[in-house]
């Protein structure tokens, strides 16, 4: 593995401190992948969403430098890049925690008491919805509907859908991620 600080010149300011999703990988690679995506779309401005998706997958979130970089590459003004990045719920301009818990608040989950799950997780780990714990371990988010209505109430823990959740089960599922149980 090469030294992580062996950045190419133009990317130095663009590489945020290695996010959890790419821990242990040289930062350079991520920009190579991003460049490949931009190239695959032939630098077309209409590929903005696709490229932002890739950028967020690579870096975990979209910081100002990344947005600028993408805008330049696609020849899209910064105002439009920022406008798109803030319009869609999927894009995050802030770093996310090492682990994620997404509580579904769709209608089926609402009918089956999803708000109690959300409240329990918030209370147990002192984390606001769409926020991250100060130690950066846990990000809590809500979803409009993840389409797992047959298993309501549902939540997603680090990408794995878990159905028929209870407040206690959700709190227990997160406990191993946290440095000290509360």
């Amino acid at each position, binding site marked *: 593995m090469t030294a992580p600080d062996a950045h190419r010149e133009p990317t130095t300011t663009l590489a945020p401190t290695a996010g959890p999703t790419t821990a242990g990988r040289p930062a350079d690679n991520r920009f190579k992948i991003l460049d490949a995506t931009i190239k695959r779309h032939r630098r077309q401005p209409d590929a903005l*969403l696709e490229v932002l998706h890739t950028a967020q997958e690579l870096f975990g979130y979209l910081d100002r430098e990344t947005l600028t970089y993408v805008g330049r590459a696609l020849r899209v003004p910064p105002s439009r890049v920022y406008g798109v990045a803030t319009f869609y719920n999927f894009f995050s301009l802030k770093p996310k925690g090492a682990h994620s818990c997404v509580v579904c608040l769709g209608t*089926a989950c609402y009918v089956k008491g999803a708000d109690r799950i959300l409240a329990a997780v918030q209370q147990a780990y002192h984390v606001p919805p769409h926020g991250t714990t100060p130690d950066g371990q846990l990000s809590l988010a809500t979803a*409009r509907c*993840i*389409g*797992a*209505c*047959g298993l309501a109430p549902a939540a997603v823990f680090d990408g794995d859908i878990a159905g028929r959740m209870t407040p206690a089960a959700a709190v227990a599922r997160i406990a191993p991620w946290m440095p000290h149980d509360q």
Partner: protein
Amino acid sequence: MTSDDLDTVRARERAAFAAAPCRLAVCTAAGCLSSGAGAVRDALERTAADGADSPGLRIIGTGCLGLCHAGPLLRVFRAGAPDVTYAHATPDLAAAVVRQLPDGRLPDERQLPAMHPFFAHQHPVVLENAGRIDCERIEDYVAAGGYAALQQAMTEMKPDDVIREVVASGLRGRGGAGYPTGLKWSTVAKARGAGKFVVCNADEGDPGAFMDRSVLEGDPHRVIEGMAIAGFAVGAEQGYIYVRGEYPLAVSRLRVAIRQAERMDLLGQRILDTPFSFRIDVRIGAGAFVCGEETALIASIEGKRGAPRPRPPYPASFGLWGRPTLINNVETYANIPPIIRSGGAAYARLGTERSKGTKVFALAGAIVNTGLIEVPMGTSLRQIIFDIGGGIPDGRSFKAAQTGGPSGGCIPASHLDLPVDYEALAGIGSIMGSGGLIVMDDRSCMVDVARFFMEFCRDESCGKCIPCRAGTVQMHTLLMRMTTGVAAERDLTLLEQLADMVTRTSLCGLGQTAANPVVSTLRHFRDEYMAHILEHRCPAGVCRMPRAPERAS
């Protein structure tokens, strides 16, 4: 590959099917996977590999079998014997099934009854391949008669003939509004201009709806085939599928399916060695409900903020990049292959006078059998909820069914015998919607339900037009006053006025329908609103009213 070559593949696959007298189908839709279907499949494969004494056994990962709450589901098909379905399958059970297959005596535990009412009352058309095919093998789809409709259209029909069959079928848009599909197709076909587009709206945003997700995960080729036929009919060479970002599994299965179809010349240049070319690209949404609206969806495919624009011009004449564009929903395209295969007239025999065919519903909420079902149009809500859905659990009583998500309405018990079709639902102030059907029991407060949907619309309003941007905020505030027990009667008057204004003056469907849940709950459950306002009391016991006066009776 030519049409004849495809016939050869079909014949070969069917022979292979016949040679495998036993198939074990594990449901690998997102629901069952999250309940452990992956481990069940591994156990099946491991056990089958261990004992070499199971010739003719095939293990497949199949699309949604429907009964999501009983997952993982495992279905056993044997030549000359009735199918057996296992609920809550475990790896141990799976291994036992494989071991006992040669003796023909399957384990009894966890077997669903042979004629389980959940399955017995359904009529699958869109979901016909669920359980039968492996969702990641194009050969399975071809063997089940897949791409035969595309072959037929390309080799025996003209674009006009295709449109005539779709018109004859009486198919209406399954995204919710119910616009006649044939009419839309002929408008786009007649539109002048080169470079037309076919777009599939897979931005299934209504909370409580997962029909499109299941179709894309379980039978992606069906949607691809429907889109290719549409491209042929309207004269488009490029298609886009816009899928919700929340559906990663559907996206990956779709991408696999597109690659497979390209390899077999069913997509791409010169399809089946004819002059017709058609390619499909996947576009992934980024979590904006408004993108389900067609002009917003177009803006999003173009890489912009998903803000709608006024219509006309309609996308049929001025759509993606200003070109004539056909936009249909996933389920609409999924209905096309059977319409072409057996003819529009045959399809039109199913359903009611003005709503033809079948409808897929996602049953969820306070109902015993949650999951995915498909019934002919005109089936009554009572049949859907009580016969297929198994009724209300925990000895509770039915209070309302909610259809159409945040644009829809609530249907009270007095309308349970209503035949479900576009007109009947509109007649009682709800809509067909895309197919989400949420059942609520007596523990649901209808004022809080209205608040829930208004909160949704408030958050998802794109902010472009004032009635929707400001109106949803104000209506939500008024509903909050009611659910916290501080509302007065004039708040209700104001709410009704605002609901009317927002409905009449909003730019797009989101705002125009945002007040529907309020209007419909007011229509059927006005007494609950009055209890909240006059007595500061929540009859269902959902709303907390700290300021409720003691003397309220």
